[in-house]
């Protein structure tokens, strides 16, 4: 394995990385062009924003990792009854847009605000991003190591801490990275919670007449924070080999007996489901029932649903395809170059949608006017925004696949392209499916880029929900929120199926 990848393999990966770096480049040019950056950044308000953003990212990510890992362990590795139901319930919050969840909680009480509220709502919305990879990994673990540990005298918790947790590290840190990036760029969910971060402040600056420069300066700080997060994740992942080496198939692990802790496990999971699903669904039901503007215009709803689904399918296909060469390079040809290429694809996700959209507008209008406001342009924006969702899933799948299979196929005379199609892809099909489903879910709720970059006249569930809820017709908005959840449900279900296939 050479540390320097061959040019042919490097080119597509570098091209993808360059594409996802466009928004960060746009921010950098803006900062360099404006001489006033120091004054705009050296203010007490920026210190306040920095504290808030860092607190939210650290606490939110820690909460998601804790909740996601514990829930995954309880569902996958204990004698809990009704496992399929719990699996579905634990993943289902992915189908509920974070801003709908936030509206739901907020309407319980207007005093629901501040850091605590922000951490609670974002944790309930994003813990499945940790739950999913951890649950998948728990199913794939060979129980032999744990059994050895037990034989050597360790009880349940030391075994969990010394043997299971280290093996879960890549899954936990991959999930944590996704959560942290989402929190950096989160706007919709924080809007009503009176908690300001860099991203909310950037939106505020764009609303002020003369303040493009201040917005770019703040976005510059956001890019730096993202680099910091990426660095931390690199340190946490570790480089241990995770693919099995032994011959034969791994047995299924024996479930841990819950015993007297059963009520705690059931109670915790019920609370989690109630908070993440019950509250937002209850809120939608309330709007549907109390509002006089509630209407179900069948034609309009049908057209909007199909546009949303087609865009989300295309977005998922494009994003996952683009992520593949980068993920492959970073796992199969590790080294400084491939790591740099892989890391750079995460930057777009940490920037607010408005910054990404304005960057693409500026570039497209100048250099690709024929593509401007075309479907292709919108799909490019989705790829830039959601690449990490596909990347994390693909990388996890590649890491669990022994590279020897590829080598064996090559030694049997199969050409590299055929190896990819006949060996590698089928082996990582689960990761491809999971990544695509995650991107699909993100596209369904994407708002800013869709508004600015879609072909004129395009209406998606998210744009219609936004349009109705800004003119405060909550009854009119509710059907769109409900449809977003229904359309997302199959993708969320697919994610649970994907992880169950590992058992068979």
């Amino acid at each position, binding site marked *: 394995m050479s540390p320097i990848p061959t040019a042919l393999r490097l080119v597509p990966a570098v091209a993808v990385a360059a594409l996802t770096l466009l928004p960060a480049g746009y921010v950098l040019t803006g900062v360099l062009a404006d001489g006033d950056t120091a004054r705009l950044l050296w203010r007490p308000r920026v210190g306040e924003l920095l504290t808030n953003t860092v607190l939210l990212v650290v606490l939110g990510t820690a909460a998601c990792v804790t909740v996601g890992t514990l829930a995954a362990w309880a569902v996958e590795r204990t004698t809990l009854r009704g496992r399929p139901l719990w699996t579905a319930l634990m993943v289902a919050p992915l189908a509920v847009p974070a801003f709908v969840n936030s509206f739901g909680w907020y309407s319980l009480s207007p005093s629901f605000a501040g850091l605590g509220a922000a951490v609670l709502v974002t944790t309930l919305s994003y813990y499945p991003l940790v739950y999913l990879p951890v649950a998948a990994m728990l199913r794939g673990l060979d129980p032999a190591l744990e059994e050895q540990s037990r034989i050597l005298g360790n009880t349940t918790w030391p075994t969990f801490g010394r043997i299971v947790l280290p093996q879960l590290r890549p899954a936990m840190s991959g999930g944590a990275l996704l959560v942290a990036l989402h929190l950096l760029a989160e706007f919709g969910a924080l809007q009503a919670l009176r908690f300001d971060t860099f991203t909310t402040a950037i939106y505020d600056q764009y609303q002020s007449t003369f303040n493009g420069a201040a917005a770019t300066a703040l976005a510059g700080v956001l890019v730096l924070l993202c680099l910091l997060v990426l660095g931390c994740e690199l340190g946490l992942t570790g480089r241990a080999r995770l693919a099995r080496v032994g011959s034969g198939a791994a047995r299924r692990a024996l479930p841990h007996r819950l015993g007297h802790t059963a009520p705690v496990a059931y109670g915790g999971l019920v609370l989690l489901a109630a908070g993440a699903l019950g509250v937002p669904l209850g809120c939608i039901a309330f709007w549907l029932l109390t509002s006089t503007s509630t209407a179900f215009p069948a034609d309009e709803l049908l057209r909007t649903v199909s546009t949303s689904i087609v865009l989300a399918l295309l977005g998922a296909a494009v994003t996952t395809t683009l992520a593949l060469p980068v993920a492959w390079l970073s796992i199969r040809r590790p080294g400084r170059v491939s790591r740099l290429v892989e890391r750079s694809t995460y930057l777009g996700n940490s920037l607010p949608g408005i910054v990404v959209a304005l960057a693409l507008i500026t570039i497209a209008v100048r250099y690709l006017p024929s593509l401007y406001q075309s479907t292709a342009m919108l799909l490019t924006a989705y790829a830039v925004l959601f690449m990490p969702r596909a990347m994390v899933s693909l990388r996890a799948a590649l890491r669990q696949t022994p590279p020897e299979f590829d080598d064996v196929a090559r030694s049997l005379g199969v050409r590299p392209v055929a190896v990819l199609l006949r060996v590698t892809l089928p082996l990582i*099909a689960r990761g491809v499916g999971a990544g695509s489903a995650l991107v699909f879910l993100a596209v369904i709720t994407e708002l800013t880029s869709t508004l600015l970059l879609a072909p004129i006249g*395009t209406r998606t569930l998210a744009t219609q929900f936004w349009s109705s809820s800004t003119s405060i017709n909550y009854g009119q908005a509710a059907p769109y929120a409900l449809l977003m959840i229904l359309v997302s449900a199959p993708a969320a279900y697919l994610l649970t199926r994907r992880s169950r296939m590992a058992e068979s």
Partner: protein
Amino acid sequence: MRTTRHTLLALAVTTAIGLTACGADDTPASSAAPSTAALVLYNAQHEEVGQAWADAFTAKTGIKVEVRNGSDFELANQIIAEGAASPADVFITENSPAMALVSSKDLFAPVDAATKAQVPAEYSSSKGDWVGVAARSTVFVYNSTQVTDAQLPQSIMDLAKPEWKGRFGISPSGADFQAIVSAVYAVQGDAAAAAWLQGVKDNAKIYRGNSTIMKAANAGEVPGGVIYHYYWYGDQADGGAGSSNTKLKFFGNKDAGAFLSVSGGGVLKSSKHPAEAQRFLAYMSGPEGQKLLADSDALEYSVGTGVAANPKLKPLAELDIPPVDLNTLNGPKVIEEMQRVGLL
């Protein structure tokens, strides 16, 4: 066996996606294909308002109008990023600062004289490059069980006094409240306004969005708040779940708090159909377009001469608004002042 199955599955998925891809590319392309003179409206007004104007104009003239929806700041920044290549012909907003932003980059064409004559000068750009098409009034929303009529502030300036500490909400991050602050600077002068702003920073509870403030007042979380009128009327018309415990106070008396925020409309310099675009703007700000607005359930004020506002609203003539130059609203000074006291 497993491998074959997976490959087949992958193939099937790819084909299905490919097929939908073709289907998808057809739909937006056909709707985006410019016919002889299809106008493009960048609509930051409420979607129903912009769409209603576009549909009625097409019915009357046969000129097609395609609508892109977004918020004031999104679309204004988009137009600036697009520059001379903007596909937009006409731009309408919720508040005038977004118009002033585009105007400051010299991207609007002058408005036809006949169109300007349809709207009173105080509701239009002093540069003559956009006109008012609708308006919303500043109001004080209050919980009627917590605040008696006698306790109400008589001027928006009263909110800086100690008795209002922690007792009202504002949404300083929104363009709405920023426009109100600029009105205070315009009406009261710099010194008085700066002292007031500091008082407001010390006294106010910070919310994001007008409807959030209204619901908080309704729930008794805060006794009152500064918002625009139509949030309240809109909620009342929609069942009143967020406003049934509240009432509105209009400041009047040419008080800065009686500020009327104007929604503007303008024709882009880069428009490829300037004649049709001017005609569309004339229609929206003219008697027919204004009547359409007044009769709709948008509950915004019509501003065209000779068209009465929606009868559910307090008449425009009774609002007794302060005189303000709309093109200077929300200027760099106000933003710097709000940054200085720490509201932004």
